[in-house]
Structure formats: C-alpha cells, structure tokens
C-alpha cells in the first residue's frame, strides 16, 4: 500500500484513539460550501495522479488529490470529457476527490446527468481506518449496494475517498449557443416545451431577460435544432458557460447570500424578490438577496425540491443551516449511515448537518 495511504490510515486510528475529528480537504476550492467542520486538516493533494485511462473503455481512474484541471486536460487530448462539467471554483485548485465529495455538476447536468451518474467505483478509508473498495471500472455493476454513488455529494462525512473510477464520454462533435430575448415565465415555458422534444439541448441559462441555450451533438442535429429554434448565435459561448459553471458570471458577483434552489423544472417563477439566474431547463434556480431562510425553503419545498444556502449569509447559516432540513425518517437513516461508515464521528463533523 502507498505510504500516503498508510499515513492517512494512521491518522484515522489516532483520531479515533484521541477522540479527535478530521477535516478532509483537497484543494480547498469549495471551502465555502457547507458547514464549517472542526479539526485538523487531512490534506488529500499529496495522493495524486491518474491510475488508469483507457479511452476505448470510456473509463478513467484517478487518485483523489489529482487536480481536476489535469484530469480534464488528459481527457481532452483524446477528445473525451466529464460530461457533467463539474465546477472548479478558483483557478486550478479543485481536485477529483473534492469534485466527488461535493457532488456538484455544471451546466450540462440536466441533459447528461450529475457526478453521481458517472461514478463507477471508489476506494476509501472508513472511520475505523479500513481500506475498502466498492464498484469498479465497468458500466454496469449491481454487486452489493451502490456505495460509489453514495459517496458523490457525501461531503466527506462517510470516509476519505482515495481513488475514483469515472465514466467519460466523447466530446460532442458540434456545439452552438443561441440567445433569445424572453421574460422569466416565458423562458421557463419554452424550456419545458423544448425538453419534451428530441432536441440536442445541452444546457440553458436564463438571467435578466435573456435565455441562453446551448446545443451539442452531431452536426446535423445541431443544425436542424438551430433552424427549428431560431435565436441569435452567441460568439463568446465557451467563456459564458464557464462563467456560469464557476460562478464568475456577473450575476454571482458580491458577497450577499446566494441560494441554490433545486426544484421541479416546470415550477413557474418563484416570485421571491431579488435577482435570479436559472439553469438546467428550469430545475436549478440561483437567488441572490437577504430573503429569510423560511421563505426560500418553503418556496423550494412547494416546488418539489429543496434550498441550499450556497454562499455567504453567515447569520442564516448559523440559525437555519446550509442544507434543507430532512424528514425525521430520512434524518434517522442519515445518522445510522454516518455511524455505519464512521462510528466514532471522525470525518467532517458539521460539514453537512450539525450532528454529523
């Protein structure tokens, strides 16, 4: 076993013995996200590198500390990509392990799936310092429970993810971005109507009277869709989508609270005052402003979803928490799962829900 892993296992054992907690950290690009975990840092960046990459198998295996940018550059060389376009948030710091633990996906999510849909296997160290491997490198695998997907978005609360196997896909041959002048309600209607047609819509973003739509696929399909939809072609599209993905778009500027509402795509405008940016065909709504947590969370719940205090708002964070409260039944299962993987409560205490 690699010496870095041995050291990590040692640290987990020490933490258990001394009743300490550990705070798992990759590049720190998402330090802002979630609660503030206590305890000394277990830095994953020393454990880096691509373990295996076989373009013909559509699979890449990487160590947790591998910079996301490095992985993406390698895939790009072979005309492949992580289709869910994980956000980096900050130049060059994001790691593969952090990407899986945060479970965040970018503009193409509604069309191609999320991080969890591409995680095929994980190797991890649990809260007793055990080295465990789940899943594998094949597309279909139902032996045992789907622990690899469970790790996506678990925010390091269940274990130290040391290695992940990811499904990758070819970069679509053609891409085009179109813009339409539309109000919020009208844009939502259009997006949902288009969603029911076999159009190669890969991403969408509505903000301030403009709906931007990205087409990706075979050239013939993209041409046909453009002819059917109309709209104005956008020139600097790559920069635009990256700005949405990494929240460098002007909408995200400033320090006020930023809410992330994940709702049913057909939900009409939420009617909560404040600037909004809508992605994922209507299923993701970013909201800026000082609205009360109660107002935002109940609006999200009525729309079949949930609201996360994504950035800022320290006072709200302290009083209402970052993540949407769980039902009692779910909360109990969460607590039990935490105990199943991390019985001594070593990892990332307080990062997701206050008690674990």
């Amino acid at each position: 076993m690699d010496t870095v892993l041995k050291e990590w296992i040692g640290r987990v054992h020490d933490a258990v013995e001394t009743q300490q907690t550990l705070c798992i950290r990759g590049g720190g690009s998402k330090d802002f996200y979630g609660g503030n975990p206590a305890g000394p840092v277990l830095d994953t960046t020393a454990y880096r590198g691509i373990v295996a990459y076989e373009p013909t198998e559509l699979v890449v295996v990487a160590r947790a500390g591998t910079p996301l940018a490095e992985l993406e550059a390698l895939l790009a060389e072979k005309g492949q990509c992580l289709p869910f376009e994980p956000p980096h948030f900050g130049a060059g710091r994001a790691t593969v392990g952090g990407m899986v633990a945060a479970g965040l996906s970018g503009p193409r999510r509604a069309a191609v799936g999320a991080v969890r849909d591409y995680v095929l296997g994980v190797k991890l160290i649990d809260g007793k310092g055990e080295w465990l491997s789940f899943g594998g490198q094949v597309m279909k695998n139902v032996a045992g429970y789907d622990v690899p997907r469970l790790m996506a978005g678990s925010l390091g609360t269940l274990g130290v993810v040391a290695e992940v196997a990811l499904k990758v896909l070819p970069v679509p041959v053609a891409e085009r971005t179109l813009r339409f002048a539309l109000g919020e309600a009208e844009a939502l209607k259009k997006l949902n109507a288009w969603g029911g047609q076999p159009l190669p819509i890969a991403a969408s973003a509505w903000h301030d009277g403009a709906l931007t739509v990205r087409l990706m696929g075979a050239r013939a399909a993209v041409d046909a869709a453009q002819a059917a939809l109309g709209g104005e072609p956008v020139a600097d599209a790559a920069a635009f989508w990256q700005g949405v993905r990494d929240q460098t778009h002007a909408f995200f500027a400033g320090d006020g609270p930023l809410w992330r509402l994940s709702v049913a795509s057909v939900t009409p405008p939420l009617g909560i005052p404040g600037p909004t940016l809508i992605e994922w065909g209507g299923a993701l709504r970013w909201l800026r402003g000082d609205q009360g947590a109660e107002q935002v969370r109940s609006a999200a719940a009525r729309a079949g979803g949930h609201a996360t205090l994504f950035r800022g708002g320290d006072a709200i964070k302290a009083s209402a928490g970052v993540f949407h409260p769980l039902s009692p039944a779910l909360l109990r299962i969460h607590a039990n799962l935490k105990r199943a993987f991390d019985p001594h409560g070593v990892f990332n205490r307080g990062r997701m829900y206050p008690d674990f």
Partner: protein
Amino acid sequence: MAFANDVRFTVDQRSILARLQAVLPPDALLSAEEDMRPYECDGLTAYRALPLLVALPQTEAQVQAVLRACHELKVPVVPRGAATGLSGGAMPHEDGVVLSLARFKKILKIDPLSRTALVQPGVRNLAVSEAAAPYGLYYAPDPSSQIACTIGGNVAENSGGVHCLKYGLTVHNVLKVRGFTVEGEAVEFGADALDAPGLDLLALINGSEGLLAVITEVTVKLTPKPELAQVVLAYFDDVQKAGNAVADVIAAGIIPGGLEMMDKAATHAVEPYVKAGYDLDAEAVLLCESDGTPAEVAEEIERMKMVLEKSGATSLVVSQSEAERLRFWAGRKAAFPAVGRITPDYLCMDGTIPRKRLAEMLEAIGDLSVKYGLRCANVFHAGDGNLHPLIMYDANQPGEVERATAFGAEILELSVQLGGTITGEHGVGVEKIDVMAAQFTPAEISAFHRLKAAFDEKGLLNPGKGIPTLARCREYTLTRAQTGSAAAITPPRF
C-alpha cells in the same frame, strides 16, 4: 433445489397470521400451500421455497400495517413484483411473509410538460412507455422482460436494457421513490427536482434488491422519442472478431443507441421462435443502433458501417423500416425464452467485463463448455460489457445442476479477474451470494451489513439475500481454495 438460507428466524405462524388477518381483506392473504405454490420461486426456477404467508395489499396503509406487524413479531418480509428476477431475489423466505406489490398497478400521472411519470410499483415497465407514447415520450430502460417485469422490481434490481449504453440504467432514469421502512414508516428518496438534500439515498435504493425498503411509488423520467432509429446487423465469421468490433465502435467515438451481440447458438435458438430474419451461417451478429434526426442517423450509420467493415464484418444489413427494426430487436429480446425452448433448463449468467476483454472471455466460455460438457448460448449487452451466457442443462439428469452451477461460477470468477463484476443487472439474490466473496473482502462485506442495518436494524427485509454472511464467505473461500480456483483467494482490485 432448496437454497440453504443461513439467516433464520423463529416465527409463530399463528400469531403472524392473526395479525395480518386483522389488517388485510381475506382475498389479500394466502396461507394454504396450494395457493402459495405459485410464489415459491422467481425467474430463477432452480431455487424454491414456500413462505409462511403471502400478503397482497392494495393500499399503502395495508403495506404499512403488514410491515408494522412483521417488524413487531420479528418476521422476515420478502417484497415481490412480477417475479421475473433471475437471481432469486423474490424467492420466499421459509420463515417469512411474501409482500407482493402486484396489486399496485396504477399509473398515477403522466406529465408531458415535466417529462415524468408517477407510477405504482406493480406497473409493468412497458406500460409506462405505452402510456407516454401519445406525448412522443417513453421510459428509456427496456429490460428484455419489459412486457412482464414491474417498475418496483426494476428499481430494486437497477435493471438495464438493450438501450442503456446511451440512455442509462434504471438509476439514471428515476427521480423519486416513495416507500416504507421495515418499521412501516413512510419515506421519500430523491425529489421532483434533479437532486435532493443530504446523502444520495436514491442511489442506494436502486439495486437494493428489496433489502432496504419497500417501494410503493416511483417517479420516472420520460425521454423524448428520437425522430428516427435504425439498426445495423453486422455478421461475423468469428465470435472474437465480433467482440473486438464492439471495442472498435466505441473507440471510434460512437455511442450507439444499443450495441448487442448474439452468437450462433443464440441466433439458432431465436430464429425458429421469432423469425427475425437473422443469417444463420454467421458465427456472431452485432446489433448496432443509431437514433436521432434523419440526417444524424444517416451520417452515423455510415460511420458505423465503416468501422464494422474494418473490424471484419462479413455482411451488414440496415433496417429499412420501423417494423423491420422492431423485428430485429424482437429476436434479441426473445433470446432467453427462445433458449428455454431448446433445453429443459438453463442458467443465465450476468457478469460484466471491460469491453476489450470480450474476445478473451468468449474463448474461455468456449473452453468451459467443453470442460463441463454443457451447451452455452451467448447473448451480450456488448456495448456495456455485460454478458449473458446461457448455460443449458437438464435438472433431471444426475449431476447436471451441479455442473451447470460450477460452469457459471467459473465464468463469474473470470469476470472478476478480468476487472469486472459478478452481476451487471440481475442482482445477487440467492444465486450469486457465495461468489460475492470472490469480489469483496470480509471488511467490505461487513460494511455492506452495516449499511443494511442503517435501514433495517433487525435484518428483516429479504434476509439472507444479496450480501453473504461472513460465515458463507469463509466457507466459499475455503471450498474454492481446495478446488484450486485463484479468484476465490485473490479479491479483485480495480
């Protein structure tokens, strides 16, 4: 065959009967042996067991009441859909109650605007697509059993289909699951949104084989029907060339709508049954589908033909009409029952391996067929590397079951050695419970048990299935070490 379930319970049949009689109408509770016979197995007919009782609730309140009673009296519960499962997942527990969801048959809502369907778990897979068809939508995962299998069973097995290479497995197409914990508490996993707060429990419920919760409602994603789909039949004079062609297609950057393979034994079984029009002289056939706009399909079919020709296809046939396309697929989808017609019994394997090892695996299966003196037809979800070797045997011939089982175990162990898994979509159930030890270490198996306990502390939901007890693992490892199988001793790593 009886399955030696090593997780047993001491249950007083009369008390549980009385408790269930109090909460279910008379026609929703079976206790006479002749009434329960039809429930003694699922699609894996080699293993059978009679339950204590069969409950057929029709409402969530009844499901809840049954679960509460069983939980209180510590009675095992085995959820059951259409029982088309091929790993014994729905086979009864001798000390327990079968909880059939067969009466949960309603499609509650088809919402064309949000492209979702809200259905009860006993709704058949194909019925969802049929109900969505008027809106130009369908439910993408299409297991070959789709006329019979239920959505609840699909979720519990994370079932795949012939189109999941491009459109994903069940787990990729389910938004929300409503169900009950073993204690009878209502619970929702997932959301009407694309994600839910907290841990991704929806991912765990998919493929949980009825061990974590009882599913009573499912919201699935519907997909717009492509304008056009066409399938290329590519024939090969050598199975290994066909296996390599699969990797070549993917390497060319093509993700076909479906990429399936059958060998000669399979096409010969299928043709008299379905009359799909396959060329019976070929050693193997690939079905490679393209879908999209007409222009897109035309372009892609040309690329596919070029790759397949280069890989050594002896002839290529492209479907010329929707009827012909469906006929070509009908042959593939009927492969299991077709083989069932030419042999008294068969075992269906389900290993998955990296695509590039297909040719190697095919050669090994050929050798094993000779070694065990049993015929084997091969049907593959080739694009996903998911293999369904169908091992033919006759349970009435002494020793044949054992030979078939050993043949199957060798294929599964080899799947693991080649970097794959023992099951791609049919689940572990009782069938592959021992071979789990070839894929997971005792520490990993223990982690699975702890995960199960997080949902079901007393271990009452489908006990003895899916995850082997550590005692079973030890026994397996010892036996296989004695018979000289390497896979049993070296757990695989990816």
